[in-house]
């Protein structure tokens, strides 16, 4: 039992030293590289602001989302700063759950934030959260393999070209897949990619009266194309690969092409984490019928829940963590490829960043051109490129994602899968009151 006494004693000592007189703000955040760097550098913030103490709650993305949603919907008030995305910010802002960020200090330079990102985090033109980093999607490919096969990458690849290349490059005997794409079901996993594919094939989730269009011709064509492409030229077990799995496959040289988040660029371009860093090519996300909505827009952002009792201190922190000075601090301390990308025009104007990150222009263009207010060929009633900004979408998106994964594994035909989800989404939308 001696051990059992020793540990509480150490714990009490640690506790009493941690709770000094300063105002403590509790920050809920996701566990990814950028956020870990923020946590490490936050010592600087605490030095500059001795009256503010930071308390961190770091969680995996899905757990975090559930956790903060519960808390904000029930006004639990456990957090002073929450990490949320472009999906949540406008919806929560509309419900008055977030502190509107309309009186930011002048030196914060709000206009420096890249416009689509700012729009994606606003409700009625008022920012609801400050972007910590933002991403779009783009294509990564292996320049060595493309050269070997005499393929030249055009400025804007099309999906039919991509299929031809995948066919040429696919070499399962040597553990090389022609293309890697997301297959793991989930609204933030396969559906993020599939939605952009449907967009560029000319489809949309809902018409202007909220009638689902999931078994439309465009969806059929897009999903059949996806199932054939990934089924024939994808890695084995593609239906269980999400972002992380594909990143591991691509960076260990097992994929010739990969279409996914721009935020992966820094890591697969880093020779410590990737064996293909020297042969890495970048291209915009491929298009089909229309360039609209062919690449997504996502941002992790810091918001202050309306229930927080330390709003001023929280605001001081989030303006620090999303400022230009912070970007420079990361650049100097951690190296320029590690700076949080996609949020500020000034980051991309910085020569040091351009030099360190040859993919910078692709990322900036992709983000600038992603328009969450106009993401499909035909007009739609929703906000979002790779998602539909309504609370029901998490469940709808995941449900559709599961059926598409079933079509990918061959458990059911594309037609059956799409007809089934069309019926169930119609029912969901009726029940939620969107349809008569």
């Amino acid at each position: 039992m001696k051990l059992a006494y020793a540990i509480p004693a150490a714990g009490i000592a640690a506790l009493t030293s941690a709770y000094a007189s300063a105002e403590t703000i509790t920050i809920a955040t996701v566990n990814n590289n950028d956020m870990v760097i923020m946590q490490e550098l936050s010592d600087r913030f605490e030095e500059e602001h001795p009256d503010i103490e930071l308390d961190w709650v770091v969680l995996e993305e899905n757990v975090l989302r559930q956790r903060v949603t519960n808390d904000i919907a029930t006004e639990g008030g456990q957090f002073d700063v929450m990490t949320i995305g472009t999906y949540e910010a406008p919806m929560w802002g509309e419900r008055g759950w977030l502190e509107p960020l309309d009186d930011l200090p002048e030196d914060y330079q709000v206009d420096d934030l890249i416009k689509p990102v700012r729009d994606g985090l606003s409700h009625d033109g008022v920012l609801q959260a400050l972007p910590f980093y933002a991403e779009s999607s783009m294509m990564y490919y292996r320049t060595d393999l493309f050269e070997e096969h005499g393929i030249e990458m055009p400025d804007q690849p099309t999906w039919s070209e991509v299929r031809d290349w995948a066919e040429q490059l696919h070499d399962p005997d040597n553990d090389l897949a022609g293309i890697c794409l997301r297959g793991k079901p989930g609204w933030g996993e396969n559906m993020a990619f599939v939605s952009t594919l449907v967009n560029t094939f000319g489809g949309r989730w809902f018409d202007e009266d909220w009638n689902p269009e999931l078994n439309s011709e465009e969806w059929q064509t897009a999903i059949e194309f996806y199932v054939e492409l990934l089924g024939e030229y994808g890695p084995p077990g593609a239906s269980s690969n999400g972002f992380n799995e594909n990143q591991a496959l691509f960076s260990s040289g097992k994929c010739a092409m990969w279409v996914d988040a721009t935020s992966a660029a820094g890591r697969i371009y880093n020779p410590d984490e990737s064996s293909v860093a020297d042969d890495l090519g970048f291209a915009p996300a491929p298009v089909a019928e229309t360039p609209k909505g062919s690449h997504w827009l996502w941002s992790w952002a810091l918001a202050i829940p309306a229930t927080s009792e330390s709003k001023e201190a929280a605001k001081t922190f989030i303006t620090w963590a999303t400022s230009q000075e912070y970007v420079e601090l990361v650049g100097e301390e951690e190296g320029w490829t590690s700076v949080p990308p996609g949020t500020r025009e000034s980051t991309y104007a910085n020569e040091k960043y351009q030099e360190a990150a040859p993919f910078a222009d692709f990322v900036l263009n992709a983000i600038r051109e992603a328009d969450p207010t106009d993401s499909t060929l035909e007009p739609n009633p929703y906000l979002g490129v790779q998602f539909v900004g309504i609370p029901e979408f998490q469940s709808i998106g995941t449900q559709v994602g599961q059926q598409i994964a079933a079509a990918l594994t061959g458990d059911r035909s594309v037609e059956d899968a799409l007809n089934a989800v069309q019926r169930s989404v119609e029912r969901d939308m009726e029940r939620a009151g969107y349809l008569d």
Partner: protein
Amino acid sequence: MSAVQTKRPWVGVLAWVIALIIFFPILWMVLTGFKTEADAIASPSLFFTPTLESYVEVQGRADYPKHAFNSITISLASTLLALLIAIPSAYAMAFLPTKRTKATLLWMLSTKMLPPVGVLMPIYLLSRDLGLLDTRTGLTIVYTMMNLPIVVWMLYTFFKDLPRDILEAGRMDGANTFQEVTLLLLPLSMPGIASTGLLSIILSWNEAFWSLNLTASKAAPLTAYIASFSSPEGLFWAKLSAASTMAIAPILIFGWMTQKQMVRGLTFGAVK
């Protein structure tokens, strides 16, 4: 035992194989904690250069003593509380049963069949209104309720196996109910109570659903500490393994020290 061993050596071999299979994931976790992140995702290998890199990083990123303190207080307090409630109720059911006792016991167990997420919202709202969110008290109460059915059931089976004559003899000698319980029942069933308590401590220690949902930072136990190292992107296996090793170390040592009581308790009354 030695006669059995010489006659059937395969029993021993089989026991070792099963033990190794059960132990292997834990061993792998401990090994992974000493690898670099790159080694951790490389092809599985037993040979690598051990490093403390992950431990250093894990230490830098989260406050281990705080989480460990929370885990220890919450699991001990909830176990004591559960025993305090369960001993009288198990006593009543074992020695003074009514015709509804069996049904009550079954009903108690049936509450364990409900997935916890089904009552997440009510419990969350109750905790919020009572000011128990992110407090050790709140989590202690939830864990007590969570383990109570199992604790009552186990104690009930232990108590039932006690010869009633001894208690009756005590009563004849003039012992009141309180003395009967404290002087006869408790000492006689100590192995059972000890193993029940140990099981309850382990269950509370490992519980992750409520601890993740009801705590933020102040009362977060070690399960929340482990969860903070899981990540949807980037490499994290070595750090996660290092954090997990540190989180299970106290309970593993505790379990190892109390092994004798546990085994004695669990097999108590099994051979009759």
